[in-house]
């Protein structure tokens, strides 16, 4: 079958050289070289300088805020994502197509619009803000607000990761389980859950990665207060690019840490997908 490839036969499909040239050169020009510049810039600092900068309390706090809020949001999205995917795959009801169609809204809606809208809704003169205030919870300008913004942008990742897998899962497996006398919760835990675990982790990872780097939807509702610990990492980077006190080296150093976190997560997601695809094809 495999005709193309080293030693196995002649490559018959034309265009290898041209597509390889274009792919590598454009990828380098548009993505890799600019990213390498960030790394090069942060290497201008000596190691002690670098360490001093990234361990400053406000920067460590920003990383904690970003990662913690993104993690909580990804957990919330995992729970609701599984329920939503399940409902969309397994049940028939009026308005289902409409609901299915709007899952990608957070992709399509500009983050800045989402950001200012959520802020107004949850601030003390917004109607949801008032409702929460009555039960004593402040949402806008707190970490809860950041989590809500991250839940908003993360929903589609989890739902769309699980949906196709659930669609392919034959109902006969569950029915067999039920026939053999297992309760519904046992069937879910032992039959369905193991199947949706890999896509759930993928969706969780994507939502988490998106949350950690998120800027537009978060910066309005967070209030960006150092005192209330609501500054996120991308805000700190942007701050160093703006205003009078431009600090490119500092921005590059923090960005480098953020890049490393992203790469590790990208790698983990790829490993999960790889392991999962091996398991299902076996």
């Amino acid at each position, binding site marked *: *079958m495999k005709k193309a490839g080293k030693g196995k036969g002649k490559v018959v499909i034309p265009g290898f050289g041209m597509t390889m040239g274009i792919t590598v050169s454009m990828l380098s020009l*548009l993505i890799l070289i600019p990213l390498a510049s960030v790394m090069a810039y942060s290497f201008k600092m000596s190691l002690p300088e670098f360490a001093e900068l990234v361990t400053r309390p406000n920067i460590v706090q920003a990383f904690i805020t970003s990662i913690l809020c993104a993690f909580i949001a990804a957990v919330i999205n995992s729970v609701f994502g599984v*329920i939503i995917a399940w409902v969309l795959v397994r049940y028939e009801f009026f308005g289902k197509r409409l609901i299915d169609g709007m899952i990608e*809204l957070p992709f399509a809606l500009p983050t800045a619009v989402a950001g*200012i809208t959520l802020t*107004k809704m949850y601030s003390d003169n*917004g109607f949801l803000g008032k409702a929460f205030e009555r039960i004593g919870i402040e949402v806008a300008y707190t970490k809860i607000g950041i989590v809500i913004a991250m839940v908003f942008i993360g929903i589609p990742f989890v739902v769309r990761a699980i949906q196709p897998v659930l669609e392919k899962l034959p109902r006969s497996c569950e029915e067999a389980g039920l026939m053999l006398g297992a309760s519904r919760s046992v069937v879910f835990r032992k039959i369905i859950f193991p199947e949706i675990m890999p896509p759930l982790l993928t969706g969780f990872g994507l939502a988490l990665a998106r949350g950690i780097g998120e800027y537009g939807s978060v910066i309005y509702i967070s209030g960006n207060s150092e005192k209330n610990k609501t500054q996120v990492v991308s805000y700190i980077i942007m701050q160093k*690019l703006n205003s009078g006190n431009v600090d490119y080296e500092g921005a590059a150093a923090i960005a480098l840490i953020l890049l490393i976190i992203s790469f590790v997560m990208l790698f983990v997601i790829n490993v999960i997908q790889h392991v999962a695809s091996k398991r299902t094809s076996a």
Partner: protein
Amino acid sequence: MKNNSEKIVKWILIGITVIFLFIMLVLPMFEVIYRALKDGLAAYKTALTAKNTLSALKVTLIATIIALIVNTLLGIIMAWQVTKFDFKGKNVLATLIDIPFSISPVIAGLAFIMTFGRSGWAKPIVDAINNALGTDIELVFSVPAVVLATIFVTFPFISREIIPILNAQGRDEEEAAALMGASGFTIFRRITFPHIKWGLVYGMILCTARAFGEFGAVYAVSKARGKTFTLPLEVDALYMSGTADSITQAFAVSSLLVGMAVIVLILKNIVEYRAKGKKSV
């Protein structure tokens, strides 16, 4: 008994889904429209026809269209590259293409500042090219910078949609055509393209949505309101002005973006519906 409890579970789960999505997705849409129209239609119209808004709309359209064209061509080429050939480092290449998907948009903006900015290492190269050509192109804090940042964040969208389709399709058809003497372009047009048509359109729709909505990356490389601002940046500027009027204007401009988002969603669903119809036939 069992059937009954099953029904209860079903409606509880549907209830959770509907309530969650209503609060998280639908309510914010109404909020935008409500706040945009708070001061009446006349104020709404004024906000949308303001000079800064029109300029932002123009920049947004320029950036979106160029990003869409560049990424469509590159997306097809890259997808062809990683699915039709075997070579060393193929998986690495596929992963590298996906990078912009998982990094913070702020870093994308930062990357261009550090490459082409005042103290960026490529600044002398850009200057030299400008001198040689007699042009005055700036690659930061300018419209070209906005275009570059937009291309960066939407880079993987199209190849991501096509690669799985091409992988599933295999190479036999292309190989047969090549052996019978068809040229590369003919093979693509007659054999590959019909397979990836819907995936390509789907990817283009996602790319468009992300391109006109991008904020963080563009924000870093665009500083001149009324010149290099895109619609999301204009929303930010109006909102940050902080007066009641300007906030209402921010929501008026937002409503425009909501409209664009809804159109994108409708198109996406039409494409999905069509693609599914094709498969089942």
